[in-house]
């Protein structure tokens, strides 16, 4: 066959075999960047306020913390799982840390305890998935409801005001270094770290193997249960981190925070290329997904589109993004 070249001398300078720019064109991230830039151009004409520093800052603050959740979700999706409890677990972290703080515990320690508890929730879910053999969907659905119930129980359903939080703690959520908010810096650190880990480390490569074909992974000597347990735990742990940042930003703990957040997070990961069947996804893509969604929300708000329409439009974007990608993938094969 002409196309099937015998592997006589693989070119080591360019082992991928195709020019870099062509590979770039094929990457889904490129498409997302083009769409995002397009929206930028359109919006900067449509609203004079759009390109202002204040708006940019508000917008990036909005996606930065959710971005941390999307990282955890993407890794979990790659391993073949899914987590519906991210919204409630984030609220749970906030509520627990806030409650402990009000009961006289140092806020840093309280945050540590809350994050550890969230890790525990992840491990709890991982246990039911890997040891009992239940599906992620069901386990996380149950945990979503339980965690939300716990939030309401601790707070009596009312937000807890944390006015006495020390300023250095609030600084995480509200402060800036120069012009750049701390939240953005934390977010970028997480993105760079996890992007690197996912692409380069043997540990995270096993996540791809497991999600791509769990049995083949087991037959390659990979402890797939352990991998799934860890990705499940990681996702909930990152919810804990996000909850603490939110608490610092709001200066309060809100038991009803993040209702429906799981859908935004899953949508962002999927728009960014994560497959619900496992085995594919990237941090960069997922982040672009979350940026796109948040850009759309803020654009719609700036254009005074009704809140009700916003949901309809965001849902349609998810559907179109996934449909387009489905067809592009088909053509690539």
């Amino acid at each position, binding site marked *: 066959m002409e*196309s*099937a070249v*015998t592997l006589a001398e*693989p070119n080591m300078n360019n082992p*991928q075999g195709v020019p870099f720019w062509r590979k770039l064109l094929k990457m889904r991230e490129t498409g997302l960047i083009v769409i995002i830039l397009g929206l930028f151009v359109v919006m900067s004409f449509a609203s004079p306020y759009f390109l202002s520093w204040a708006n940019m800052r508000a917008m990036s603050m909005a996606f930065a913390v959710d971005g941390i959740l999307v990282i955890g979700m993407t890794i979990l999706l790659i391993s073949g799982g899914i987590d519906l409890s991210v919204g409630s677990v984030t609220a749970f972290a906030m509520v627990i840390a806030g409650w402990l703080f009000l009961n006289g515990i140092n806020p840093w320690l309280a945050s540590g305890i809350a994050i550890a508890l969230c890790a525990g929730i992840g491990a709890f879910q991982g246990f039911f998935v890997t040891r009992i053999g239940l599906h992620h969907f069901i386990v996380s659905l149950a945990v979503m409801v339980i965690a939300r119930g716990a939030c309401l129980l601790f707070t009596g359903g009312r937000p807890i005001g944390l006015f006495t939080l020390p300023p250095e703690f609030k600084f995480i959520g509200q402060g800036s270094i120069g012009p750049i908010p701390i939240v953005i810096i934390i977010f970028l650190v997480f993105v760079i770290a996890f992007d690197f880990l996912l692409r380069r480390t043997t540990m995270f490569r096993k996540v791809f193997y497991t999600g791509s*074909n769990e049995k*083949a*992974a087991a037959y390659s000597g990979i402890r797939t249960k352990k991998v799934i347990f860890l990705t499940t735990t990681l996702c909930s742990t990152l919810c804990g981190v996000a909850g603490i940042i939110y608490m610092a930003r709001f200066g309060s703990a809100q038991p009803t925070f993040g209702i429906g957040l799981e859908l935004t997070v899953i949508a962002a990961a999927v728009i960014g290329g994560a497959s619900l069947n496992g085995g594919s996804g990237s941090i960069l893509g997922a982040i672009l997904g979350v940026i796109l969604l948040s850009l759309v929300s803020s654009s719609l708000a700036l254009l005074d589109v009704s809140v009700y329409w916003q949901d309809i439009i965001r849902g349609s974007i998810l559907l179109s993004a996934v449909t387009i990608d489905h067809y592009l993938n088909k053509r690539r094969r």
Partner: protein
Amino acid sequence: MQDDVILKISNLSKSFGAVKALRGVDFDLRKGEIHAVAGENGAGKSTLMNVIDGILQPDSGEILLDGVPVTIASPTEAQRLGIGFVHQEIALCPDVSVAENIFMSRTNVSRSWLMNYEKLEQEAAEVFRQLSDIDASVLLRDLSISNQQLVEIAKALTLDCRILILDEPTAALTENEAQTLFRIMRQLADQGISIIYISHRMVEIFDNCDRVTVFRDGKHIVTNDVADITPGDVVNAMVGRVVDKLYPEKQSAGEVSDEIILEVKNLNEAPRIRDVSFALKRGEILGIAGLIGAGRSEIARGICRLEGAATGEVRLLGETLALRNYQDSIAKGMVYLSEDRKGDGVFLELPISENISALNLDQVANPIGLIKASSEIRQAGDLGRKLNLKCGSLTDPVSSLSGGNQQKVALAKMLSVNPRLIFLDEPTRGVDVGAKSEIHRILRNLARNGVGIIVISSELPELIGLCDRVMVVREGRISGEVAGHEMTEENIMRLASVMDAQAAAF
């Protein structure tokens, strides 16, 4: 046999991107004939069949049905035109009854609102009366794979088709079931139905078909009456060169060694493995034969700790192993190549290079666990060259490869850890003739270089042609062993058979 042509295809071409799957192919099918289509994987036979069944649309060329040009837009359209296709992969619903599965297509076109289960079962029983004694009321999932395949065939038979395409239907059938199928095929042909029969197996083609067409590299090579052509000609046409020897040389007398690579004593895991003891010497290839379900794979997987908790003593190169899991087995250099390549052998959507490195990522990573892409590509390149892997780029997904090349990727994965012993479960299943003999040669070379090779296969000619010694398993026990001139299909079958209904079904 009548000579009137029912289906005529002329100058048909089909490309997938840069890959030309069919290049100006001609093909004709006569009324009431059984027409074998042969060719290696990637030769274009599947593409052509998918075009005939309306799954794919040709780029150019003409399809004439009864002399009239037709466009077959979809499988439903094909069904309406009287074309039935039995796919190699089983596409049935496991959770409903056999009868409902058979009549799925018909229920689909039925105008009635309600299901008439009683009538369905009666009619299914009628179809099966000539095919097999399967109870049409049981759930499909409770049938063996071979019986499921028969259901798939029965399903096609119930559609009033004039052209029936069978894609390697005997791959999962026992000899007896296959013979029944051939008898039915002949009956259907006598009734005027034309059958396109895709197969790799020369014996089947020459015993049961009227004509044979060979494809290679998307081109039509030859069509002939089977009476006017020899199996050797067909194989040569398929491979495109003269295949003088199908199997590599066996171990010569000078290569016999006393060094024991693997010694297994009293391996037990009731009820699947019972008291299994054997030894593998350096330089020999040991075969494991037996009926499906006799415990062949279980023994290999038990030794490697892939499943179960078998007890007994396992010594590899004199060292007694105490493995806790398969990771330990890999670390000791004992690996298992799975029988189900797509199910658990390879990661289809991941790149070739990432497949090959999966068994031991540490080899392509630095001490702190960072993967070096260049090492990974180099490893895949080295092993790929060794195994004569044909691919566009090492970063292409494995799904882009033919069956034979996928299997080479799976094999390269095993070799990446420099194993001391490899269990190969059905190493050439779904692999074309050319790649098959290449794989056999590779295995022989590995054995010569001191790697222990144990081959499990359902294909007796393969075991006899490749192995120096064959051990036969029956109901979890070793029922005997044959070597040298005693390695015949009859001897192996006798040892494998149980004295009940199963005995005849090998």
